[in-house]
């Protein structure tokens, strides 16, 4: 298998890449290619022009920006997973990156690429949602910020326009977050059959705020608003977590797929909301 014919450019500057995108509506941005190339090989997607951003300088850093961490467009999954900064302040994202794809995929695929690809069962988008991340999209007209909650629009569809590049993901620092999943090949390997990320803030023994997100259960990585409502204001104990588990798929369209029935997926969503919450709350103590 190989893709349909396309043109390829590898600009060396962001401005050049953005200019190319602006004048070529049929162009597609590629960073690692771990999601795009398989789609192109299956001919589910056939762009006229591939703009490879891998040779642009200055997009490969993970930076401490005080109240948040910024992950550049070319930061690979394995770098996000191994970063002490991400592990300390965004543990959910570090786990999600460590369990993305397999070793070879993590060596080339990028965290921002996983966000932009917006797979229904991807790990890192759920972590970004739970952590309240902000996506920074650049175009030749300037940059705009998109809240993670508004970024994942539908299956394989993000809020990015065709002339935009996701240049960085900003993750507000959280000392208490976790991600857990059931991988399609068991354990944590492969895409999630279902998974959940949770981030909590505790004050005076009470959960003062929380972010909880699901992946693998519906048409897109999505927030679990019912679980958040259930856990905020509680002591974060076993009963409170059970309450959040019970409301894991409230308002979420759960769909059957090759890996399980809707009923099974809804059950798993609860299981992993429970596990992610337990780990996040434990980390807050």
């Amino acid at each position, binding site marked *: *298998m*190989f*893709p*349909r*014919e*396309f*043109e*390829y450019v*590898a600009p060396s500057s962001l401005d050049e890449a953005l200019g190319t995108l602006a004048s070529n509506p049929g162009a597609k941005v590629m960073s690692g*290619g*771990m999601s795009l*190339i*398989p789609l*192109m*090989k*299956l001919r589910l997607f056939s762009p006229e022009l*591939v703009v*490879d951003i*891998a040779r642009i300088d200055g997009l490969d850093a993970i930076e401490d920006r005080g109240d948040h961490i910024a992950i550049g467009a070319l930061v690979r999954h394995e770098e996000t997973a191994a970063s002490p900064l991400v592990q300390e302040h965004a543990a959910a994202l570090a786990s999600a990156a460590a369990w993305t*794809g*397999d*070793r*070879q*995929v993590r*060596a*080339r695929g990028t965290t921002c690429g996983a966000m932009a690809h917006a797979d229904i069962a991807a790990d890192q988008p759920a972590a970004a949602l739970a952590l309240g991340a902000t996506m920074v999209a650049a175009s030749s007209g300037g940059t705009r910020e998109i809240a993670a909650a508004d970024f994942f629009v539908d299956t394989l569809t993000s809020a990015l326009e065709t002339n935009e590049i996701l240049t960085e993901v900003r993750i507000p620092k959280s000392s208490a977050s976790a991600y857990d999943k059931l991988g399609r*090949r068991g354990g944590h*390997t492969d895409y999630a059959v279902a998974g959940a990320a949770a981030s909590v803030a505790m004050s005076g023994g009470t959960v003062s705020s929380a972010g909880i997100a699901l992946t693998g259960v519906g048409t897109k990585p999505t927030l679990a608003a019912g679980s958040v409502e259930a856990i905020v204001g509680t002591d974060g104990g076993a009963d409170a977590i059970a309450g959040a588990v019970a409301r894991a798929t409230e308002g979420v369209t759960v769909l059957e797929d090759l890996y399980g029935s809707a009923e099974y997926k809804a059950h798993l969503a609860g299981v992993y909301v429970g596990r992610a919450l337990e780990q996040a709350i434990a980390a807050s103590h």
Partner: protein
Amino acid sequence: MVLGTNLRFFRHIGVVEARFQLGLNFLMKGEPHMQVSMTVNGQAVSGDVAPRTLLVHYLREDLRLTGTHVGCETSYCGACTVIVDGKAVKSCTMLTAQAEGAEITTIEGLAENGDLHPVQEGFWERHGLQCGFCTPGMILSAVTLLEENADPSEDEIRLGIEGNLCRCTGYHNIVKAIEYAGAKLRGEEPAPAEWEVKA
């Protein structure tokens, strides 16, 4: 992908060598091509490829390095694994153009002066293969795994080869082969083979 016929008979009789090759290069002949250059197994190489030429096809069909296998072609199986700039990657999910300027090691480049690399030796000594189809990718994955973690536990080895599927062995002897290679690379004496211990 390649339908090749070597009419060696004609060379044998001193007339001509005719070679017909109906591969991807033939298919993509009319498309715009681009110049690429990289280092493969220590040798500088360059060529003209269509942008949609995958690295595995360039290695196999242009460079004739057919030790890199095409398996699932969906980036699951890892049979096409090669080492690019020190990292094991799936060459069926990489454009040749993306490898511009890269240093690539394929299975053909592992042995030095005829001596097997310790990981290759491990696969031989511990019977780490049956049909052999996954073996080149498995070995290259293991080489980078041992570079990153010189003394991996069994669990770490099993996780380290999660991107390489084997349909014959059940992985048992592959894990033993990598343990053997790890010991060799650390300058230790590998543990005896299970069949030697049980005898």
